[in-house]
């Protein structure tokens, strides 16, 4: 059998090639997944410490004289008193070795600048504290915090460290006196952006994101559903206008997001005078971006409703509109909601168009309405990523973790809904 032998001869090589090919495939999948894991791992490793914050306990003598207060201070006096001085006094008393100007400044920088405000708020809330000596827990300065988390190597030569030897000595003393503790970082969730890492939080950005999403959802969902219902149930066949709509939807789904930003800047802000940096502007731009996703998925869900249901209802004398809203819409709603959640998840992670409509400004307040200047969570990540301080790297990663958790929850919800309401016609 000349033939079979010939084939047999080359078989070894062919099977080796087969194995190699299969290996390439396995490798590609593994590389992709490995990359995903290293991305998540890297961010988790960098971000987890941000959920803990070091605090320093100082025994403050609330001396009205040092505060420059008279015998019966009113609210305004209390508000404007120099609390920073009390903190400096306390620290100098504890560490009299700080001699040079530089060292004294370093000493003050053991605690965050927010300490003075905390003190002020405590005194205003309870003026009886004046004259007493009380222990207070203050936020530690970011350098102290980073050191306490073990992210600064004290074996490095002093010149290469952000923390000098004398600072290390102070920290060690504080530690030995039990004046340092690490606790859950609530500041990160209750504060808005700040120039000081230890005071910076995501509340403002988070609220901004939520307000933006609110605008997007309340516009994109009804418009998307109506459009999908129209295209599937009412649109005339072979109509030029309808064809044009379909081409446009498909193309818009792939237009770069930054182009939508340009549109928002020129049309919404430039032409209609929507306030810059406001969640309203962001929400409008993201609405236009998510509409194609919502329309495309909703159409698929509507298409999946079998014709027999429409025919049954029509045969009972229902009008086309009654069939669409009374039967088709409720039956396809789970699919539509799934698509909407996916579209909203996309919108939540979007950054570029928001940069162009000015949501990148430094905003230290929590926005109260969709007209207030605001940032959004991904934009906050972008802003913090630019800051060189180690503590900001930590917070950037932590903000990413929060964002990713949100996205995962949304996607999990979408998967759950698809599974739960999956219709087997």
């Amino acid at each position, binding site marked *: 059998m000349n033939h079979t032998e010939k084939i047999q001869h080359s078989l070894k090589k062919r099977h080796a090639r087969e194995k190699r090919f299969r290996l390439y495939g*396995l490798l590609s*999948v593994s590389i992709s997944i490995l990359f995903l894991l290293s991305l998540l791992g890297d961010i988790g490793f960098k971000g987890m410490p941000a959920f803990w914050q070091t605090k320093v306990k100082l025994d403050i003598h609330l001396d009205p004289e040092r505060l420059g207060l008279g015998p019966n201070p009113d609210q305004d006096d209390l508000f404007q008193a120099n609390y920073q001085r009390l903190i400096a006094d306390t620290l100098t008393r504890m560490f009299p070795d700080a001699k040079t100007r530089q060292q004294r400044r370093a000493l003050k920088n053991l605690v965050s600048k927010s300490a003075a405000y905390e003190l002020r708020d405590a005194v205003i809330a309870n003026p009886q504290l004046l004259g007493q000596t009380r222990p207070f827990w203050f936020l530690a300065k970011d350098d102290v915090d980073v050191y306490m988390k073990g992210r600064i190597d004290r074996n490095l030569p002093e010149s290469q460290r952000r923390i000098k030897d004398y600072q290390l000595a102070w920290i060690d003393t504080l530690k030995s006196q039990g004046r340092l503790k690490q606790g859950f970082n609530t500041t990160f969730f209750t504060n808005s952006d700040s120039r000081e890492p230890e005071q910076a939080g995501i509340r403002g950005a988070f609220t901004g994101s939520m307000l933006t999403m609110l605008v997007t959802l309340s516009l994109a969902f009804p418009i998307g559903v*109506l459009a999908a219902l129209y295209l599937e149930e009412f649109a005339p066949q072979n109509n030029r206008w309808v064809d044009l*709509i379909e081409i446009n939807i498909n*193309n818009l789904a*792939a237009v*770069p997001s930054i182009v939508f930003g340009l549109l928002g800047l020129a049309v919404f802000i430039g032409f*209609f005078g929507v306030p810059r940096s406001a969640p309203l502007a962001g929400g409008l731009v993201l609405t236009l971006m998510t509409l194609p996703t919502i329309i495309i998925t909703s159409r698929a869900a509507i298409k999946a409703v079998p014709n027999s249901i429409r025919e049954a209802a029509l045969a009972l004398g229902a009008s086309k509109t009654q069939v669409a809203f009374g039967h088709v819409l409720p039956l396809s709603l789970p699919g539509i909601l799934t698509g909407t959640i996916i579209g909203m998840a996309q919108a939540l992670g979007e950054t570029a168009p928001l940069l162009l409509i000015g949501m990148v400004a430094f905003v230290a307040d929590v926005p109260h309405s969709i007209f207030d200047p605001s940032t959004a969570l991904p934009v906050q990540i972008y802003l913090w990523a630019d800051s060189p301080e180690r503590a900001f790297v930590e917070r950037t990663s932590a903000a990413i973790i929060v*964002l990713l958790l949100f996205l995962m929850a949304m996607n999990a919800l979408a998967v759950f809904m698809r599974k739960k309401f999956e219709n087997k016609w």
Partner: protein
Amino acid sequence: MNVTSLLLVLVSIALLGYFGGYRKARALSSSAKTHSRPQYHGYLVALWALLPALAVLMAWTMSQEAIITRLVMSELPATAQHQSAAERSLFINQFKNLAQAKKSAVDESGVSLPNEEDDPLTNQAANRYLHWQERSQVARTLAVITLAALAIWLTLRRLRASFQARNRVEKIIQFIMMLSASIAILTTVGIVFSVLFEALQFFRHVPITEFLFGTHWNPQTAIRADQVGGSGSFGAIPLFTGTLLISLIALSVAVPLGLFSAIYLAEYASPRVRAIAKPVMEMLAGIPTVVYGFFAALTVAPLIRQTAESLGLSASSESTLAAGLVMGIMIIPFVSSLSDDVISAVPQILRDGSYAMGATKSETIKQVIIPAALPGIVGGVLLAASRAIGETMIVVMAAGLAANLTANPLDSVTTVTTQIVTLLTGDQEFDSPKTLAAFALGLGLFVVTLGLNIISLYVVRKYREQYE
């Protein structure tokens, strides 16, 4: 009345209209059989009450800002008139801010703030502005409510037993649906007009040939007219090559990895592996790009620089390679998902035919399945390319701002999208060539990605038709 409360009032008026229509139809149906059920008469009245009033409210709200500003400016004494455009817009900003401050002060404490160091002209303008705003709001409220009431009255008068209320309601609903669908067209038109309009203005300052073929990009414009060397140069070639370089790196990562992953998942993987690996890989597309940018800038770029330095190469800290690699990983799912779909859509009988000839699996894939699925795969790659070209955050964060004309992936280059962001996030005036340049770049970006999308959609559709 502000918009929110006005909306609430409108809704209550519409509700009243609904009950009015409903009751009238009920009364009619006692003597004769009505064509439509009473609630449809109600709906019709409510819709007529709501829609025209809403349209007026929207138009009014959108245009009032511009009209009031113009009114205020025209009322000011002549000294305020002959300002340059820039001064004018600064002045407008100032008095609006002041007006805002006054308004919020009034809202909060009920006492108006004493004006501190504001100059009297600004103060006057702010007061006029507030005055007109108040007038406009009152007029708007009156107009909207009158219109709604009028519409209810007119519609109620027309109700008869034979009145086809349901058909009319459905017509209106269908019209609203058609409008919703048409927003897609409006968006495209909006994009084209906004980018085109500003880009044309830009080309009035900078000749289009210089923009398209110039090799020097340095968008510094004069702040003062007499500044030296302040004209800036707008040759976009380095941006195009930079975009191209990064996209090519990204595609050379994404295409092989994506394609091989798709082949493995579609042809080799067991259903269990597939059920896990496919959604995990698709997670890559769900991660926000700002996260990739952060990872590229803070983890991958330093890694590349260290590696390059240990090999004796010099690498920029903002390396093209880092941005390209990370972007490549990000667009893997675009290649793999679509390829997976088209590979799975190749009919089983083609595979069977090849196996029956004694082909191994890889031979079948290479010689039968890939050629059969090629149009779909090409479509996926084009879509990924359009994604890479339009990607913004990764390059903004990880690639540089230096407009180098280089093909060295260890150097730093800048891209079209990076420049758009840079030009538009700083301090800006709306009419400077610097700002307008961003729109010209946006126009280029839109045209190129649109072209890629259209080609890829066409290719994929042709492929689908082949097997349907």
